[in-house]
């Protein structure tokens, strides 16, 4: 990093000067770049999108529960569609067209550390058959991103931090649940620093490495029946995904699980590109890496938020059968620099030893 510490800015609360490596204001203690999550601003739209189309109709009130007093329709809430933009990474989540609420959640953070910025993304997809899946996904994502951000600021190992984050998310779900009630969600985290991408997951939310080169690849493998069928060589991917059991997940994060057993990989990209983290609401319509890279690039390299919005629109146009969440993060996490000088030609996808979280 060559940035001038004096140029970093001022605390938004007290106005005291800050440096880029400050996580908290030295003067008042305010967190300078707190994590962001796809929480809903409280309340619903102020007018009914159906009734307000008719210019003749008198404006109707929206009830406290979010229904139009005239036509009775539920109006969208803030959680239904949410966009987060941290510059180097951005995400968009949407309810889709067939579900009544958005049970996906995402949480993003950016740590400013001496080695350069670290981008952090967590995406969770609530398990619809469990109670309160929308609360589960959000609680898990928020707990995990907080742990990852704190660890990144301390310069801790991303893989260790990722395991700790899974445990934080698990504890958050345990607090949410009760005996006989186990809110559950899929889980995937990505930590992107100047050297590598570290991905940990449970379930079938995915991470991809997208680049214009031949190194583009899927980073995660689904914990799903379909993926296991493919892995065993029982079926091809297309056939497996079409099978009725395709979306049955074999691992997830839930209040009723004794200990989460995530998978993890550390990937060193050979050059610049973007990391895509998404729920199955996107990849169901375009599972192959090349196809996703074609949709996202090159726009994602300069405009992660715009590209994420385009990918969500693609899934909506394709049917929007599920909730859709798309996060795009630049690698390396450095804003608008000339092409990366690294010339390591070899693609390295190193699978971390499977381990039980402590």
């Amino acid at each position, binding site marked *: 990093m060559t940035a001038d510490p004096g140029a970093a800015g001022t605390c938004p609360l007290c106005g005291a000067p800050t440096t880029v490596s400050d996580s908290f204001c030295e003067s008042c203690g305010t967190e300078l770049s707190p994590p962001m999550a796809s929480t809903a601003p409280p309340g619903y739209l102020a007018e009914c999108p159906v009734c307000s189309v008719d210019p003749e109709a008198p404006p109707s009130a929206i*009830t406290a*529960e979010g*229904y*139009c007093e*005239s*036509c*009775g*329709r*539920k109006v969208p809430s803030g959680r239904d569609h949410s966009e987060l933009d941290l510059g180097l990474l951005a995400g968009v989540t949407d309810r*889709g*067209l*067939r*579900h*009544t609420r958005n049970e996906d959640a995402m949480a993003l953070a950016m740590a400013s550390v001496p080695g350069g910025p670290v981008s952090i993304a967590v995406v969770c997809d609530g398990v619809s058959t469990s109670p309160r899946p929308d609360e589960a996904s959000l609680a898990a994502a928020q707990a995990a991103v907080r742990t990852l951000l704190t660890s990144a600021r301390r310069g801790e190992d991303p893989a260790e931090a990722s395991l700790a984050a899974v445990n934080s998310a698990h504890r958050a779900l345990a607090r949410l649940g009760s005996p006989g009630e186990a809110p559950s969600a899929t889980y995937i985290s990505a930590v992107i620093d100047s050297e590598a991408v570290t991905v940990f997951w449970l379930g079938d939310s995915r991470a991809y490495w997208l680049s214009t080169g031949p190194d583009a690849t899927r980073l995660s493998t689904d914990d799903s029946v379909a993926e296991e069928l493919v892995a065993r060589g029982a079926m091809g991917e297309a056939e497996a995904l079409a099978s009725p059991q395709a979306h049955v997940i074999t691992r997830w994060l839930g209040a009723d699980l004794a200990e989460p057993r995530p998978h993890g990989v550390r990937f060193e990209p050979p050059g610049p590109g973007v990391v895509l983290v998404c729920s199955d609401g996107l990849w169901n319509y375009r599972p192959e890496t090349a196809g996703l890279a074609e949709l996202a690039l090159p726009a994602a390299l300069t405009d992660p938020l715009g590209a994420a919005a385009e990918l969500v629109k693609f899934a909506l146009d394709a049917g929007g059968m599920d909730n859709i969440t798309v996060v795009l993060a630049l690698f390396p996490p450095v804003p608008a620099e000339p092409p990366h000088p690294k010339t390591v030609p070899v693609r390295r996808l190193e699978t971390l030893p499977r381990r039980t979280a402590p």
Partner: protein
Amino acid sequence: MTESGFTVDVDQNQYLPEGGREVSAIATVTSAADAAGLAGPGPEPEGSAEIIIIDCSGSMEHPRTKIAEARAATAAAVDVVRDGVLFSVIAGTNLAWPAFPADGSMARADAASRAAAKQAVAGLRAGGGTAIGQWLELARQMFAGYPATLRHAILLTDGKNQHESPEQLATAIRECEGVFSCDCRGVGTDWEVNELRAISTALLGSVDIVPDPAGLAADFAAMMQSAMGKQVADVALRVWTPQHATVRFVKQVAPTVDDLTGRRTPAGPQAGDYPTGAWGPDESRDYHVGVEVTPAGVGQEMLAARVSLVANSPSGAEVLGQGLVRAIWTDDEALSTKINPRVAHYTGQAELAAVIQDGLEARKQGDEETATAKLGRAVALAHQSGNEETAKLLAKVVDVVDAETGTVRLRKQVEDADEMALDTRSTKTVRARK
């Protein structure tokens, strides 16, 4: 419990298939167990007025114990009237006259007025005909002279409404609707179930047979006790529906079946009130609400109805509680085809009441085939839903061959009292477990 002391809980399957229009829900209204927790003026004695209407027609002398027990029952009810409550006793024949106070006013209850009332009642003699419309009309006029909001009457008869036309009775009932509530009792077996049911339904009260006059006193005391517990008058179920939606039906389904659909009065845009009468503490009633809505797309959610409990008073309407009936359209058949057990239960209980009444009517007309089919269906429904009281009453009218399938034979010899008990109690339901 809410601040008002009332809760409205809605139970339904909110999922509809694509294009589905019919939404059905059970709304359970419950009042606080503690009287102090209830909204309204509270059990202020001056807010309550009670009239006991006692049949003094000539047939009450046959057997003589009838008029004697009716006098004793009236005295027992008078004993239960709380201090300060307005009360009176009407004697009815083909005319109606004030038995107490003799000047046609209402007395304020205290030890002296209760003793005077009992003395007046002890002097009642039987003689003359039966014109129930006249009795109701006199009660209406008496209530109208006082500002009490909780107005309740007990009506006892032993015979048919012979000395006025059915139209005269119907007009009198209509005039009394909304003015007071009325519990009806038929003593012996010479009265007409349909006549008393018409009164009790319109006036939001109960109806029952007292086959043996000896049972009257305890029954009267219990009815008066229950009336003394009422606290919130003129409570309505207000049903709001979205534009272009229609209310298919609103029925009370527990503790008894009572179809309120035709009793709607408008209550502002897109809403109507259905009367539920007066409420006391620790009451719980279930209502079945059916709404037809314009379908929205799969994935859309709609508020299909808002069911509120509203207390109407001269100062305006107070909302005591509310529940939401939702509709969510889904292409997941496992969700949309799921039958809500409580909706199914009460659909069965309403059918049970209907097939008993139809079956008894067919039996009266001599149509044994229809009677056997309807009462057989009733036996099966009562058996499946665990409505043991009704099953017992049915077994006195038909011989049950197989309760599960509803195979029955009509009994040749049926006591009138058993048939009338089955008819009057056909609307009693058993509660569906949540």
